[in-house]
Every structure is written in structure tokens, then in C-alpha cells.
């Protein structure tokens, strides 16, 4: 598999406009009153919607925003593949390709060519209202973006990329929901020392850059290196306008808001349409204070159509990480399914089982890969993990609940899981829906293939009633 070749988001769009079915809306659109997402909702199909570029957007001051905005970059599987340089419509092909692509870590290169700093707004001129903040879904608690936050671990040179929901609060402040993973840990480290954490909110880059932010990466791996792997060449970086070399930023990005996560402060933020397909509620989130807005000429903000296919498919990196984790623990794992339409905390593992105990071992690997999954169903590899009917058939016919359903207590859960009480623990289960090794399997009821060949349908006259 060949990774994507890095370029700007605009170059990527132009190159793949036909293959992705890109649509452009030239009419004036106010995304703050659901106008953009209303258009997207009407274009959405069960297999996703086309990428839509809104070229004339109203900002919070009621004027034309300097930025355009792209939605549905990941809504179609084909587009996700094109982001990674993989030509396929098949989800499993992407899952298989991603670990190979991700493994080719590339060290960033510092450059003096910094398109994203073509315009730099700081000081008294700084005003977040110039941006086309967006309302996505009903009952959302404010105006939002879904940028990538780039931050450096305090006391190290390692960068983390994190995909976050960010809401407008006033001309220099925003609220940021942060899940308790790596960025959360960085902020906590800084906060304990009494320091704010410098961050760069990247509002648009090559679509592979964003997928690097969604990867489940080991804590010691620099995610700027992962971005280089997915983009197919080293990430070009440059000193930030506000923090200089203390915060290197992606030079080829479309737009960046530089600022700090303010220590010892929280703000009421939310609700927001989340990937669980519910609204994540109003909660206490982190406070961001902006120091600079930088952008290239005619920047394009890469925005997610929250709670829809675009949002779910953007988790492809996590999905691939789950497959890799399960296969590392149990090489007999063939596929991992992660229901896109209602099972964000449930994974299905298929394996070519050679020993009892492998299902539980594979399940534990997935449960341990992050805090997203709390329920795992393990099936034999004759079951299609992407087909809920097929999975339910296995559960219905291969499970003895007293032996094959294992309850798990005391798990860390996802803050966005509405069944989960915040920072308390949650519970999960493993269902082993595989045949036991050595067990005689009942034949599946089907007509012999040889008979179907011998008696082809077109040899008969079929009269309609």
C-alpha cells in the first residue's frame, strides 16, 4: 500500500474532486444557524454524503468569513481511502492498510516556507468572531469547531495530536472538551506545575493529518511522526507565532488558532453532537485563551459533520488500532468490526480459532487498547463482523450464557458514554460466540452448490401469480 502524498488540503481536494464527488456551495451560508448542516442532512444517504465545500460563509460578526469550510471529508469510505492514498471502497482494506502505513514514522522537517502564517492576527486585532463558527445538530449548546489540537508534552519534545470539540465563548476564549487520554495528561502535568499548556488548534490540513490525531498511539510516539507516516512524507513544521520554537506548528495547515489551555480553570461547555450519536451533555470543560490566529490565503477549515457518517468514519485510525492490538495478542484474529451505526463502545472480533482461550485473550487486547470499548463479541471467522445479523446468529446459536458471557466490572469508560457516570467506573462484557475447539459443528442448512450449477434458474419457466 502506498500512503498519501502530502499536500495542502486545497491540493488534495482539487486532485480528488471527481473521485470524491465534491460539491461546492457558492451561495452565502450562515453555519451558525444550522444552515450548513441542514444542507448536509439533505445530502446524507446510508452510505454517507459527498464532501461539501462552503465557499461563502458568514462569520460571527455577520460578515463574510476569510475561511471556507469543508464537511464530509470522511463520510464516504472511498474518501477515507483517498485521504490515506488507498484506492478502495472496502472498509476492511483500509483497516489492513493502516497499520502498514502508520508504521513508517517520519520525523518532521522544519521549514521557512510557512503558508499558514501568511496572515497573522495578534494583540488587539485578535477576534475569534472572524471565524464561521458552526451549529451542527439540534440542542447543541453553542457554536463549535472540531479542530486538531497539537500540544507538546511538558518537559519533552514529543507532540500529541488530539481531535476535540471547541466552542466559542468570547472574542479570545473558547471551551474545549478533552477526553482523559494523552492531551488530558499533558494539561494535567502543566496544571500541577501551575502552568498553562500552549496548544495549536489546527483548523484544516491534509485529511490524513486529522486521521493521525485519531490514532491510538503509544505514549512515547510523537504524533507529528505519525502524521508524516499517514501523509506519506515528513510533516513540515515551523515555530509558532506566539510561542516560537516552544510550540512547532504544521506549516502547511490552512488555519491555526494559537493559545493556551488555562490552568486551574474550567468552563461550562456543551452539549455537542457526539460520535455516540447522542448529544454529549453540558459539562465542565477546559478553558482556552487565544493568542494568535494565523492562516494561508483563502483557507479551508476541515470541519466534521458531527454525529453523522463523517464523524463515525473519522475513527478509522482507532478501528485499525483495535485490529492491530487484537492481532498482536492473537495472530489468528482475522477481522475486527466496530459498528458504525450504534455500537461505538462495542467491537466484534473474528478469529480462526486454534485454541480455547484465544477469544478472551483477543477481547482483552481490544479492551486494553484504549478507554473506548467496553463490550467485545468474539466470533468464528465464518461470521461477517460487519453484519449485525450474522453476529446475532452466532450469539444465538453458539453461546451458552453461563459459560460464554463474562461480565467485567471496574472499567474506565468513555466520558461520552451516556450509560457511564463521568469519572466513575463502568462495566462491560465479553461474549465468546465461537465453537469450542474439537466441537463437532452442525452443518449449515443450504442447497448444495453443485445442484445450483446443475439446475440453473434460466432453464425453467417461472410464471408470476
Amino acid at each position, binding site marked *: 500500500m502506498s500512503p498519501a502524498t502530502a499536500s495542502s488540503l486545497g491540493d488534495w481536494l482539487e486532485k480528488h474532486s471527481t473521485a470524491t464527488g465534491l460539491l461546492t456551495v457558492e451561495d452565502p451560508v450562515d453555519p451558525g444557524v444550522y444552515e450548513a448542516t441542514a444542507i448536509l442532512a439533505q445530502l446524507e444517504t446510508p452510505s454517507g454524503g459527498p464532501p461539501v465545500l462552503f465557499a461563502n460563509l458568514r462569520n460571527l460578526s455577520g460578515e463574510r468569513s476569510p475561511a471556507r469550510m469543508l464537511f464530509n471529508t470522511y463520510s464516504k469510505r472511498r474518501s477515507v481511502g483517498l485521504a490515506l492514498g488507498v484506492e478502495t471502497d472496502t472498509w476492511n482494506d483500509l483497516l489492513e492498510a493502516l497499520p502498514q502505513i502508520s508504521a513508517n514514522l517520519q520525523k518532521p522537517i522544519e521549514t521557512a516556507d510557512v503558508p499558514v502564517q501568511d496572515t497573522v492576527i495578534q494583540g488587539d486585532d485578535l477576534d475569534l468572531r472572524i471565524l464561521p463558527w458552526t451549529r451542527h445538530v439540534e440542542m447543541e449548546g453553542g457554536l463549535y469547531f472540531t479542530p486538531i489540537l497539537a500540544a507538546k508534552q511538558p518537559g519533552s519534545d514529543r507532540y500529541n495530536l488530539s481531535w476535540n470539540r471547541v466552542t466559542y465563548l468570547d472574542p479570545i476564549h473558547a471551551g474545549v472538551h478533552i477526553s482523559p487520554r494523552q492531551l488530558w495528561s499533558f494539561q*494535567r502535568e502543566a496544571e500541577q506545575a501551575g502552568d498553562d499548556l500552549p496548544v495549536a488548534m489546527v483548523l484544516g490540513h491534509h485529511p490524513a493529518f486529522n486521521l493521525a490525531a485519531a490514532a491510538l498511539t503509544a505514549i512515547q510516539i510523537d504524533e507529528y511522526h505519525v502524521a508524516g507516516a499517514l501523509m506519506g512524507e515528513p510533516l513540515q513544521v515551523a515555530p509558532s507565532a506566539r510561542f516560537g520554537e516552544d510550540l512547532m506548528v504544521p506549516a502547511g495547515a490552512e488555519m491555526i488558532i494559537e493559545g493556551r489551555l488555562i490552568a486551574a480553570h474550567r468552563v*461550562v461547555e456543551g452539549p455537542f453532537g457526539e460520535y455516540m450519536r447522542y448529544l454529549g*451533555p453540558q*459539562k465542565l470543560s477546559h478553558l482556552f485563551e487565544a493568542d494568535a490566529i494565523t492562516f494561508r490565503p483563502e483557507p479551508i477549515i476541515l470541519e466534521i459533520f458531527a454525529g453523522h457518517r463523517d464523524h463515525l468514519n473519522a475513527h478509522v485510525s482507532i478501528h485499525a488500532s483495535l485490529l492491530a492490538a487484537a492481532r498482536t495478542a492473537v495472530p489468528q484474529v482475522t477481522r475486527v468490526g466496530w459498528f458504525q451505526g450504534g455500537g461505538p463502545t462495542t467491537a466484534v472480533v473474528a478469529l480462526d480459532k486454534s485454541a480455547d482461550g484465544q477469544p478472551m485473550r483477543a477481547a482483552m487486547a481490544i479492551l486494553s487498547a484504549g478507554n473506548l470499548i467496553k463490550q467485545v463479541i468474539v466470533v468464528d471467522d465464518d461470521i461477517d463482523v460487519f453484519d449485525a445479523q450474522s453476529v446475532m446468529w452466532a450469539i444465538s446459536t453458539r453461546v451458552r450464557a453461563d459459560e460464554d458471557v463474562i461480565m467485567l466490572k471496574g472499567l474506565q469508560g468513555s466520558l461520552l458514554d451516556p450509560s457511564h*457516570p*463521568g469519572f466513575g467506573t463502568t462495566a462491560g462484557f465479553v461474549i465468546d460466540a465461537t465453537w469450542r475447539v474439537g466441537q463437532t459443528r452442525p452443518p449449515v442448512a443450504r442447497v448444495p452448490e453443485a445442484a445450483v450449477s446443475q439446475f440453473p434458474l434460466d432453464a425453467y419457466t417461472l410464471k408470476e401469480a
Partner: protein
Amino acid sequence: MHIKEVTCPRCGKISVVDGGLYEIGTIRLRCTHCGFYFEPPDSPRSKTVAQVTNANVPITIWEPEETA
């Protein structure tokens, strides 16, 4: 996160909030519909900011200046 529905005393509409935030009770919630900030009157006030944020430093709640 457990969800709690709260009714805005100004506009009468419902917002959905984190059950933990609601149970603190001394932090003003923001009405999703009209932007009004208010303390939930029927909160049990059974949780602390530290419990809900899992922070290990004292936390100040910040609000925009133009709150109602």
C-alpha cells in the same frame, strides 16, 4: 456521562447537562436555548468540583463577561 434534564427559569426550555455538573449545584448552568446562566434550584449539591473534573488543583469556574 449520565444525563440530567434541567429547565431554564427564564425561557422554560430544557437543556441536557452532565449529571455530575448538575449535582454540584453551585455552578451556574447555561441554557442551551436562551443563554441564561442559572444554578439548578433542585440540585442535591452532593458532588464537588474536584470530583466532577478529576482535577488535582483548586478549580475556578470561568464565565464570559456578557452572561445574563
